[in-house]
């Protein structure tokens, strides 16, 4: 019989191997959607774009390999992509897709990581406060904050935050990424939704655990409130909370486009729609796969952490 460590290892390996077909399928779906819909990168529908002569279109198609059969184009893409070569952007022609992503992704990751930290720390605090003061003022305050954070779209939150903290009380700049002061509002905007999710889950989980027998035991042996909450309740309440981290990564990942465009943050989100409306095929593929791979890896990490926190879990 294999030991627990082997089990985790086998599980992780299997999940990582599953990544390959999943990403392939995502690439295929994206590729099909791009090619099955009307329009082409050679025939821009953008306002003020000059139509290209048929001959120029043919030359360009040959140059970028767009004249080959679809299955061949896809095969070439996959063969190059596994070597990290996503080709060069159709829109930013002097640069390769890998260069652009290499520059923009770290900014997005940093914004995402900061938002994540704020969301987890803030959400846990809010959730515990709400649960400890169940059905009293603090509970209602934190539940309201959590509900608003979850329900209100982040581009709307961004508008309110800019008005409050840039225009009415000029504490932070309305946009940019140059100084840490400029980081505050985008991070906060991006964090509020996930913070609400974490807070709701924490509140529910803490309420569950507070009534458990082991908490009663801890109280019965004379522990005061603080160690009961921190040592016994919070540790066990963390388990269900970890499961929402996966959807949270997704929310932060896709949410960052709106936040980045409102606050003019030079991250990957900016290229998100620009590449799509511009039919920049290589960029679209790369952006979709980057997000997809990121989410899949994060979900795997979450599942592993879950097993680590809760020894009852078997893979």
């Amino acid at each position, binding site marked *: 019989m294999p030991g627990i460590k082997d089990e985790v290892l086998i599980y992780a390996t299997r999940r990582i191997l599953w990544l390959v077909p999943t990403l392939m399928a995502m690439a295929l779906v994206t590729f099909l959607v791009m090619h099955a819909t009307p329009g082409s990168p050679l025939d821009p529908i953008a306002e003020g774009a000059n139509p290209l002569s048929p001959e120029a279109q043919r030359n360009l198609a040959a140059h970028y390999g767009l004249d080959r059969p679809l299955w061949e184009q896809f095969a070439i893409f996959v063969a190059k992509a596994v070597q990290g070569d996503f080709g060069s952007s159709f829109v930013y022609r002097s640069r390769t897709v890998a260069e652009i992503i290499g520059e923009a992704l770290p900014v997005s990751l940093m914004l995402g990581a900061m938002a994540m930290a704020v969301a987890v720390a803030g959400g846990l605090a809010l959730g515990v406060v709400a649960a400890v003061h169940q059905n009293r003022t603090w509970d209602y305050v934190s539940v309201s904050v959590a509900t608003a954070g979850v*329900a209100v779209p982040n*581009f709307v939150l961004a508008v309110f935050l800019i008005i409050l903290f840039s225009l009415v009380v000029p504490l932070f700049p309305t946009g940019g990424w140059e100084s840490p002061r400029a980081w505050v509002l985008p991070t906060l905007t991006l964090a509020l939704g996930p913070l609400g999710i974490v807070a709701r889950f924490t509140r529910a*989980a803490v309420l569950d655990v507070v009534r458990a027998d082991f908490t009663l035991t801890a109280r019965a042996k004379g522990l005061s409130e603080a160690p009961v909450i921190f040592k016994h309740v919070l540790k066990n309440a963390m388990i269900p909370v970890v499961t929402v981290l996966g*959807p949270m990564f997704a929310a932060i990942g*896709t949410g960052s486009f709106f936040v980045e465009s409102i606050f003019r943050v030079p991250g990957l989100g900016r290229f998100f729609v620009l590449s799509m409306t511009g039919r920049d095929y290589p960029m679209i593929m790369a952006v979709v796969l980057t997000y997809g791979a990121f989410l899949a890896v994060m979900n795997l990490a979450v599942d592993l952490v879950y097993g680590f926190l809760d020894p009852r879990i078997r893979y």
Partner: protein
Amino acid sequence: MVSSTLASDTRSEGASTAPSETSPQELRRQSRRSKRGGSLASDAVRRLLRNKLAVAGGLVVIALCLVAIFADVLAPYAYTKTNFGRLNEGPSLDYPFGTDQLGRDVLSRIIYGARISMLVGVGAQIIIVLIGVPIGALSGYLGGRTDLALTRIIDVMYAFPRLLFVILVMSMLGAGLANIFIAIGVTGWVGIARQTRAQVLALKEKEFADAARALGAGGSRVLARHIVPNALTPIVVAVTFGIPEAIFTEAALSFIGVGINPPTPSWGQMVGEGQQYLRSYWHLCVFPSIAIAVTMLAFTFLGDGVRDALDPKLQ
């Protein structure tokens, strides 16, 4: 994502209002009620009406529907009516919410915007149910290879960041109301299909399904007349939460310019355009932002209430 978050919240709240807190009077009242022959549905409605937040949310939703239906009567101006003498004006008696960059009345545009939001919210859910429920039900009922194939497709769709995929489909199809329905329908059925499948899997082994089969009902009849009606509760809850999600998706798409085509007004589009002039003309952005926030909150409260009212664990 949101609905799963909320589901687990209830579970523990259900535990927190455990039977021990139910007074004998309450129990007697409950048994009298069941003797009176109150059906599951009327019980649920009664519980829903006791929930103040949900009632408030429901009233706002009803008001929004009325605004959407009677927009022609309510709006002081036509949404395309321009007044070039009064561009970008702040709120005044003539224009309570001010005018936009073309001198159009912001209030009238918000009133007409309700129409798009409600249409997308409800219409998209109909499409999602029509696609998702049959696929989920078939997958769960037939099992075997069909199930395996459908689950694989569902898994791949699930791995896709939802909003990213909607934006991809929209930028490829082009802006427009019909395309929004297609984009949300094509991407949104996955969640409801998953839930229906899980329900059907659990229900098809139940005695009542066996009984129907023993009485000679064929597979499709058992599925359509006996199993799916019993799986309705989670579907209703998913739809209640799906409506604000669709409204959010439309707003987000219009915000980045791939949603509703101008000059038809949409709240997201108004926020997206107004956000560029936030510093000078705050009113362009604030009023539609408030409209989105209020709508999302109202639907969230209503959805929470519907879920709590239908959740059998709370009975």
